[in-house]
């Protein structure tokens, strides 16, 4: 374990960030916020251009002759049915964020937009921006990363490492070894910090749910730490024993609960209002999605610019932080599919689900804001984490739906942490598909410590800044992977 330089450096680097955050939480959060501010100001255009290029590339790959190439040998068949495949990849890509931002995000955009346009138009724009964050562009980042890992893994026999395509395409040279080593390190760093953020987000979500269930006010850090402790105990067990199909069942249960909540809110809420909103969102989104990807709001005032950085740019780098982790997972379940099936499945289907999800949960928020005297807008301003539970409270069986949301959030975090610890152990051991328990536990501990740092920051904005700072360098790595994929495809077609 201690002979591997990548493992030692990666554990030391992420561990150092965790220690810094525990000792001086405010210092780390303000450092991350100021650095991210500088990066986003200078490179916002580059991030938006990159994600738009990723999306265009995905559609080009699906429609070109390369679309017929199989991710595997020519006679390999897909391991999973299409429905199982789509369910698994969606659960991996979105997780607890879906529950956390379900209603709070659209209403946050609405709060800004209504300063510039009418309330009705503001709601439409808010849904468009939310769908943009969770739609085609997000999944294009995952798709390109996963496609590269799957193509080189199953078709070229490389290990599932970020560095493998680089070494395969350009040969084993000093510069490819150095850049490859750095790419693996940056991938590990981005995954660890990104997952730490998800742990914190999940804990905030569970905390708000528990407060709502038991009618508690301002439980503060005490309850958050108790939930965090329970979470650590829950994920330590699956890290030490191989649960086999157990993890898949846990993930499917969480996804099943989320789907059940979606259907319940759609049917128990103002169904016609929600369906009208969804249809409108589909039209607005697909009509404007490409230009939206190139929007940088540079001619708007500072308030819009800050909102764009805090949401759109942060989301895009957040997806980049998750890309190596989700990419490995999606690649592993996609053997035997053609590039066309892969790209269309990964990019289109989850996007349609997201539009329904935010159409229902955002829609019920807009119904409360526009058609009733509900204080929903104030709730988003004062208790962002509790927005979903506030809205569940206006529907029947709120005790049950709140408990289900808490359970789903808890399961999403456990499956994410256990899977991430496995991927981190695999990456840091040079692509070993059966990493030892000690290494997985070490990564589980680092993820827990990073999660603790972000819980101590007690602010979702601080969490997002820390993640964004860690993920920024990965923009370059994703582009490098793209170059490797395109060169290899060109070579195969020649």
């Amino acid at each position, binding site marked *: 374990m201690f*002979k*591997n*330089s*990548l*493992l030692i450096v990666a554990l030391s680097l992420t561990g150092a960030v965790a220690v810094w955050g525990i000792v001086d939480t405010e210092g780390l959060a303000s450092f991350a916020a100021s650095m991210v501010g*500088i*990066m986003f*100001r*200078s*490179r916002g255009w*580059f991030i938006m251009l990159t994600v738009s290029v990723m999306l265009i590339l995905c559609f080009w790959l699906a429609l070109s002759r390369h679309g017929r190439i199989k991710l595997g040998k020519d006679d390999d068949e897909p391991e999973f049915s299409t429905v199982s495949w789509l369910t698994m990849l969606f659960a991996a890509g979105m997780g607890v964020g879906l529950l956390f931002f379900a209603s709070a995000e659209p209403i946050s955009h609405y709060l800004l937009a209504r300063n510039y346009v009418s309330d009705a138009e503001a709601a439409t724009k808010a849904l468009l921006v939310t769908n943009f964050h969770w739609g085609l562009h997000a999944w294009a980042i995952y798709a390109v990363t996963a496609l590269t890992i799957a193509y*080189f893994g199953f*078709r*070229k*026999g*490389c*290990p599932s*490492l970020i560095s*493998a*395509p680089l*070494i*395969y*395409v*350009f*040969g*084993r*040279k000093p510069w490819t070894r150095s850049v490859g080593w750095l790419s693996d390190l940056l991938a590990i760093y981005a995954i660890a910090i990104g997952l730490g953020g998800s742990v914190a987000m999940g804990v905030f979500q569970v905390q708000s749910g528990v407060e709502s269930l038991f009618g508690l006010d301002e439980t503060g850090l005490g309850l958050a730490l108790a939930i965090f402790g329970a979470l650590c105990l829950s994920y330590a067990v699956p890290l030490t024993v191989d649960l086999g199909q157990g993890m898949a069942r846990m993930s499917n249960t969480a996804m099943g609960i989320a789907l059940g909540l979606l259907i319940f809110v759609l049917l128990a809420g103002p169904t016609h209002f929600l369906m009208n909103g969804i249809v409108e969102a589909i039209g607005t989104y697909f009509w404007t999605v490409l230009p939206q990807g190139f929007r940088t709001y540079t001619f708007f005032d500072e308030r819009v610019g800050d909102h764009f950085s805090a949401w759109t740019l942060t989301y895009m780098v957040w997806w980049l932080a998750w890309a190596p982790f989700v990419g490995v997972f999606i690649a592993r379940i996609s053997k035997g599919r053609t590039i066309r099936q892969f790209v269309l499945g990964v990019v289109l289907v989850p996007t349609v689900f997201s539009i329904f999800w935010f159409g229902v949960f955002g829609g019920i928020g807009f119904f409360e804001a526009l058609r009733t005297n509900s204080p929903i807008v104030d709730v988003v301003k004062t208790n962002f984490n509790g927005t979903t539970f506030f809205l569940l409270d206006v529907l029947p069986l709120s005790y049950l739906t709140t408990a289900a949301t808490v359970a789903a959030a808890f399961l999403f975090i456990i499956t994410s942490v256990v899977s991430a610890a496995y991927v981190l152990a695999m990456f840091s*051991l*040079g692509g*070993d598909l059966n990493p030892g328990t000690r290494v997985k536990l070490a990564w589980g501990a680092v993820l827990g410590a990073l999660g603790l740092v972000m819980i101590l920051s007690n602010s979702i904005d601080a969490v997002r800044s820390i993640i964004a700072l860690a993920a920024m360098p990965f923009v*370059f790595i994703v*582009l*490098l992977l793209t*170059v490797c994929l*395109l*060169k290899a495809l060109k*070579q195969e077609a020649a």
Partner: protein
Amino acid sequence: MDWENLVDTLLNVMVFAVIGALAWLYLRKESPEGGSPEPGSVCNEEPD
């Protein structure tokens, strides 16, 4: 030129350089020993 603008310029110059390097990597011809002669033979490596 103030410091803020200087940092902005430097960060963007880095981006332009990376874009240029990526374009060059894509366009350049690989020497026969550069790529992998047999799939999987080059990318499998034992950890240090």
